[in-house]
């Protein structure tokens, strides 16, 4: 459970940081997009304002040209008037298009009034004055003044509408920036606080896990077998715990003298990890020893253990793979049974190595009989037993060693049992780049042909 929580916490922390970065970046882009849109609209409005002032200037210039003509009758002023009015029309069309694009419908209406007035002024005032007819100059002057006054009103109205639109856009932009900033700040603070909380939680979990690991290792060390000297045998063993971030597993092996000539040899691997698995190894060790004192048939031992295991261990998710053998150190006869434990090998004196067959299912799953097999060992043959940390060892690319790889390692290791066990552990560690996913226990026993004197004794 702690393992699971400990693994999920860094993920949650990373997720918070990623979300915080996403919130910040997304907010920045959103603000940028909003401001870009606002600035583009403001730019259109400013362009319209400038163009309107230009129209106003052209209107005054046109009036001046008309006055110039009425005073001097110089045709130059007629030409100037025509040029100015053409420019005025062009500018008016441009300003109208800009205002329509910016959605300033009110301003467009005022502009249309302005343009219409200017056209009326041309027809009713400018053209009669330029025609040089006998129109009453005083009346035209007054009409001119009236037109100018009304046009002024239209221009004032357009100016006010454009200025108002500009102010509104500036206010909207400011509100958008504020809203974005406040929203981002809120979420960043929330995510930051959550990250701090989870970091504290993670630290606590790490401490708990280390305490549990220390307890488990202490237990395992206490339960692991001491080597007892066996006649005509050399025994070697090694144990390698999984990498530190994982909890300790339930590997156990034992070499126990049943009589002067018989020895119990077993190795087991409990599913699960932690204190529960470590405690179970003690149960296995002493239960098997007890059974072996009464029964000498390894298959019968496993069957009895299986029953006891089911009655004792209530956790339905726990099961055990186990290899049990009874070795006669005089005759070098090996009788064994294997409950789903496939990491058992026989290394002949020549170096040829074979896997010892599984003779029944793992313990704790179902009630099944376990077959007992018998082998006769030769001088300098070795029994090599390991837990699944050997066959399931992985190289850095994730490829498992499996049985064939384990046999290759055993064949090419030293024949001396202790050296063999140490070499296996070292090579498995090297294979995984000094990182072991599971605990690994190795037990190696090399037999020697009894000498004639020994047999008689």
């Amino acid at each position, binding site marked *: 459970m702690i393992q699971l929580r400990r693994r999920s916490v860094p993920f949650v922390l990373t997720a918070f940081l990623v979300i915080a970065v996403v919130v910040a970046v997304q907010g920045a882009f959103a603000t940028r997009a909003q401001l870009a849109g606002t600035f583009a609209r403001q730019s259109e409005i400013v362009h319209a304002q400038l163009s309107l002032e230009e129209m106003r200037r052209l209107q005054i210039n046109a009036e001046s040209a008309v006055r110039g003509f009425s005073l001097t009758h110089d045709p130059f002023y007629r030409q100037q008037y025509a040029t100015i009015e053409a420019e005025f029309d062009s500018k008016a069309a441009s300003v109208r298009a800009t205002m329509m694009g910016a959605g300033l419908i009110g301003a467009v209406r005022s502009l249309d009034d302005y343009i219409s007035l200017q056209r009326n002024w041309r027809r009713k005032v400018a053209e009669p004055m330029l025609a040089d007819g006998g129109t009453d100059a005083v009346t035209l*002057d007054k009409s001119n003044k009236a037109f100018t*006054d009304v046009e002024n009103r239209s221009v004032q109205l357009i100016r006010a509408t454009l200025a108002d639109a500009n102010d509104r856009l500036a206010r909207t932009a400011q509100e958008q920036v504020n809203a974005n900033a406040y929203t981002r700040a809120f979420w960043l603070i929330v995510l930051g606080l959550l990250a701090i909380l989870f970091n504290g939680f993670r630290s606590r979990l790490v401490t708990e896990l280390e305490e549990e690991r220390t307890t488990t290792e202490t237990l395992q060390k206490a339960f692991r077998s001491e080597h007892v000297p066996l006649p005509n045998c050399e025994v070697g063993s090694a144990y390698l715990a999984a990498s530190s971030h994982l909890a300790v597993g339930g590997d156990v092996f034992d070499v126990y003298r049943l009589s002067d000539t018989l020895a119990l040899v077993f190795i087991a691997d409990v599913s699960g990890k932690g204190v529960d698995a470590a405690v179970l190894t003690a149960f296995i060790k002493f239960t098997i020893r007890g059974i072996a004192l009464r029964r000498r048939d390894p298959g019968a031992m496993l069957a009895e253990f299986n029953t006891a295991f089911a009655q004792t261990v209530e956790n339905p998710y726990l099961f055990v793979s186990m290899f049990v053998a009874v070795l006669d150190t005089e005759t070098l006869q090996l009788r064994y049974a294997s409950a789903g434990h496939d990491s058992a090998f026989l290394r002949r004196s020549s170096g040829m190595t074979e896997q010892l067959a599984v003779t029944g299912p793992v313990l704790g799953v179902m009630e099944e009989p376990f077959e007992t097999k018998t082998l006769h060992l030769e001088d300098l043959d070795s029994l090599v037993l390991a837990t699944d940390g050997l066959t399931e060892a992985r190289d850095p690319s994730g490829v498992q060693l499996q049985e064939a790889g384990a046999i290759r390692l055993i064949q090419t290791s030293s024949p001396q049992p202790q050296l063999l066990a140490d070499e296996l552990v070292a090579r498995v560690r090297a294979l995984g780049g000094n990182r072991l996913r599971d605990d690994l226990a190795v037990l190696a026993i090399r037999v020697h042909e009894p000498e004639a004197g020994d047999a008689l004794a």
Partner: protein
Amino acid sequence: MRLRSLAALLVLFLAAFAWASADCSIHQGDKVVLYGTSDDPDVFIWDSRFRLRDYEGGSFDQMNALLPHAVLARPGTRAVVESCVSNFVQSKYLSTPDNAVGIRIVGGPLHGQRGWVLGSSLRGMPKAPR
């Protein structure tokens, strides 16, 4: 009794006149120059301050209809202030109310003519050097 009524009316008239001219910055007898705006410096002189007000607040057609009641004075025309009605001209087209000022032209082709103009169309005469 009749004399008293006339006196009361006179007092009311004078009070109303004083109130109306309370915000005027120019006073009777001030010498001024007519000048519209830099865009359009000509100034209309109206025969009635009510027409002046109607012109400033009216539509184009209404304005046209009123034109026979106005004369157009060139910028720089000199005049003397005869009366002032504060904030008399109020129109949606004006940002703030304007005064209606009664003047008498004292120079140019319109010399001697009386009428009403907007307060914003008047400029003070530069003082003569001593």
